[in-house]
């Protein structure tokens, strides 16, 4: 690395961190909406896969990446609706439904990939969002969404309602808030955002869909959400930090610690945070419990 200045290396690492944090930010903001309204969304990973695939499919069919983005939004929203419907109407166990969505998403996208492009592995190249400056559209959009999410969640009546539904649905209901409507909206928003996060992988940093391209990023986003204390800005910072761990590994080759430790770092940190060993992270009080109207 002779002749390469420290600042240059730093620049490379920072840029790489932000790039790998981009899809995570969308998904963890999505998770924030869902979980703040009291619905656990373990299906984030699967919905990202659906978003990544849909973006490529619609861009392929129309030749426009904008149509791809729209496709990812719609399909992500539909899978969000599926989770909402199962967990609100049927009061199904949210973790189980999320697991089912993850299994469905992985199989469905591979199935369609083979049926449409006639081979497993990856799709053809499609039109994508080329980089503007150091990043592509999605990265800029991600940072805008962080601010928007923060504003909506903490500065609007809607956000207040969402948070009250997640903390104490009964009290919210008594005050005339439609608990189910709020939950439906929030879980659909979480699907839309996770879908955009997936699209940022397939038509943002690449121009195709690959099997296993999401590879657990939805779960890292979930970890970031928890590590960021269920707060939009906290979650975004956690995504950047987790992105930094990945970037460090790709840039530096001779690290004093095993690379597996860097990979596992987000999960270890999250466990420490949620267990209160480093600044306790506490989730919404009514998270994961289906709300039953009229029950005491």
């Amino acid at each position, binding site marked *: 690395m002779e002749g390469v200045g420290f600042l240059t290396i730093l620049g490379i690492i920072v840029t790489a961190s932000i790039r790998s944090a981009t899809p995570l930010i969308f998904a963890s903001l999505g998770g924030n909406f869902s979980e703040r309204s009291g619905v656990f969304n*373990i299906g984030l990973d699967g919905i990202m896969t659906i978003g990544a695939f849909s973006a490529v499919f619609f861009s392929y069919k129309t030749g426009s990446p904008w149509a791809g983005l729209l496709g990812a939004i719609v399909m992500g929203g539909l899978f969000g609706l599926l989770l909402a419907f199962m967990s609100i109407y*049927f009061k199904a*166990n949210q973790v*189980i439904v999320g697991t089912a969505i993850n299994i*469905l998403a992985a*199989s469905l996208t591979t199935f369609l990939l083979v049926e449409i492009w006639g081979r497993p592995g990856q799709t053809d190249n499609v039109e994508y969002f080329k980089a503007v400056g150091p990043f592509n559209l999605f990265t800029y959009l991600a940072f805008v969404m962080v601010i928007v999410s923060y504003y909506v969640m903490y500065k609007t009546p809607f956000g207040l309602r969402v948070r009250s539904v997640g903390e104490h649905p009964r009290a919210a209901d008594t005050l005339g808030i439609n608990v189910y409507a709020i939950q439906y909206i929030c879980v659909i928003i979480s699907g839309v955002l996770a879908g955009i996060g997936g699209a940022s992988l397939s038509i943002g940093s690449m121009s195709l869909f690959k099997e296993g391209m999401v590879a657990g990023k939805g779960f890292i986003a979930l970890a970031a959400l928890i590590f960021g204390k269920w707060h939009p800005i906290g979650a975004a910072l956690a995504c950047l930090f987790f992105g930094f761990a990945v970037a460090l590994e790709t840039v530096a080759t001779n690290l004093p610690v095993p690379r597996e430790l860097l990979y596992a770092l987000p999960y270890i940190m999250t*466990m420490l945070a949620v*267990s*209160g060993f480093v600044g306790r992270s506490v989730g919404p009080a009514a998270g994961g419990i289906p709300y*039953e109207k009229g029950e005491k």
Partner: protein
Amino acid sequence: MESRINEFREGLLNTLKEIAYPLVAILISVIAGGILVYSFGKDPVLAYTSMIKGSLGDWNKFGETLVTVTPLILTGLSITFAFKCNLFNIGVEGQFIMGAIAAVWAGWAFAGLPAILHLTLTLLVGAAAGGIWASIIGWLQAKVGSHVVINGIMMNYIAMYTSNFLVRTALNVSGKAYSVEIADTAKLWRFSQAFVQFKHSRLHTGIIIALIVALVAYYILNKTVRGYEIRAVGFNPDAAEYGGINVSKNIILSMLVAGMFAGLAGAIMTTGVQYRVNTLFGFTGYGLDGISVALVGNIHPIGVILSAFLFGVMQKGGPLMQIQGIPKEVVGIIQGIIILFVAANFVKVIMGNIKQRKELKKTALQEGVE
């Protein structure tokens, strides 16, 4: 005598009721899968016949299916056991991974021991590794109050990278992307050594171990005081506490046992099939499939055996479907739909309870008015 017949009839009816819904869910999902296949211009009948032929067509295929069924029974039991204590052991995948890698270590490090002793030790080390991994999650839930699902997910990934680290360093001699091989003394006996029918299958005695463990799980849960306590805590922790049951202890204990089942599944894959562990680029799926197995098996040890067999047939039938031009991912799609259906029913049971409680409340209110 007559009352006994009635009792038996009632029991039979209840059992039928319990298995009816999973069967309906399976049927609907199979039809949905068929429609999907048909809508892409393929023959659904061919799809399902090749699924059956590919998994049960001859003795060897049947043997290979049982090889897949074995870990599924054990991970399904792991989910079931924890679920009885109202804990969702999504960390089953990590416990499976730890069991597999620990078995590699024991099977390799204690070479030289007599065969029976070495094999038993290796399986026990694998089970213990899974048990310890799970009881950390149980301890955090019981003593610190951090959620079993969140910690379970995190520990799955930590297990994967721990295993990869060991495969790359301490348990590696070749510099390749897999671990050392276990000694012959730590390998499970294969049916191909005595039965010519299973000559081309890797069927091993692990299936017998899995079936015995299922019976043991049934016995512990339904016939022992410990099992009663675990179920009491799962049903209503406050009432259990009031009744003098130690809630924390039972939470940790049921996670420990659940983890041991999952760890044993991993150890059996090591000692029966793989003999080593490869670098993982994603989850093996045996753990997470245990969730589907347990749900379709109605969270019952015997149901788990049947449902593990069903999933084994679907998974082993996939490759032949693929050869016939039908993507094997249809299996995963069917699996996803089954879980959605079963999950929806689950709750119908709970909703029935709620209804009951509401009626109780209504009568209580009326009494108050009077």
